[in-house]
């Protein structure tokens, strides 16, 4: 049941993508009760998730990037 801060951090990151198991989340919460550092870290990590959502980031798909590269190469 006891976990290290490092492990807690990893679980927290997994939890941001909803891929931590219930048992893992329980261990993280239990750890955070006593560990100020990890509880602060978890808060920030969650905030980062919210910021990323709010920013509505987008990436170009692979095909578009390939097309751009080709177009650039032709000009080089």
């Amino acid at each position, binding site marked *: 049941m006891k976990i290290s801060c490092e492990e807690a*951090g990893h679980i927290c990151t997994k939890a941001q993508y909803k891929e931590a198991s219930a048992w893992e989340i329980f261990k993280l919460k239990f750890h955070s009760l006593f560990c100020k550092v990890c509880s602060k870290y978890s808060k920030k990590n969650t905030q980062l998730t919210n910021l990323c959502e709010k920013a509505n980031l987008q990436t170009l798909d692979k095909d578009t990037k390939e097309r751009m590269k080709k*177009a650039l190469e032709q000009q080089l």
Partner: protein
Amino acid sequence: MPEHQLQPEKWVDNYADYLFNYAVGRVSDSELAKDLVQETFIAGLNSAKNFKGDAAERTWLIAILKRKVIDQYRKQNSKKGKAEVRISYTNDEAEGDWLEENVADPFIMGGDDKLENKELGLAIEGCIDKLPRKQADVFKMKTIQGMSTEDICNVLEINPSNLWVIIHRARTALMGCLNESWF
């Protein structure tokens, strides 16, 4: 030797997403934004000899993109007829009141919020660009494209625990980078 040099062969990998987010925030049409990014790269290549090396590559490309966005607005506007504003008073009593009173209040239009999101997006993109290549790629695949852990592992030929270590490092670095302005 100038401080900065252009490396066009790396432009797409390094800046395409950043420029695309910038463009999409301004023209709100992703197809059009793609075209603008493409045009920016070509224009950058054609005017590479004008690059003096005192600005970073990305800043220079953004400057070109800005011009492209403005040109785009001009093009769109020249197609339209001249805008005509007609204000009719709703009732006779109001006649003689100040026209300004009929103008929408800028604070209730929520413009600020959008602007903030635009800047936030660029701030995050800017921080992602500072990450090591692999961390940036994995973080983008997982967070922005929402790919499943399994798919990413297959594409990059890494195992899940590897993936989580990479993402964890990326997130920790991003928190540090965004710290001053956004938390």
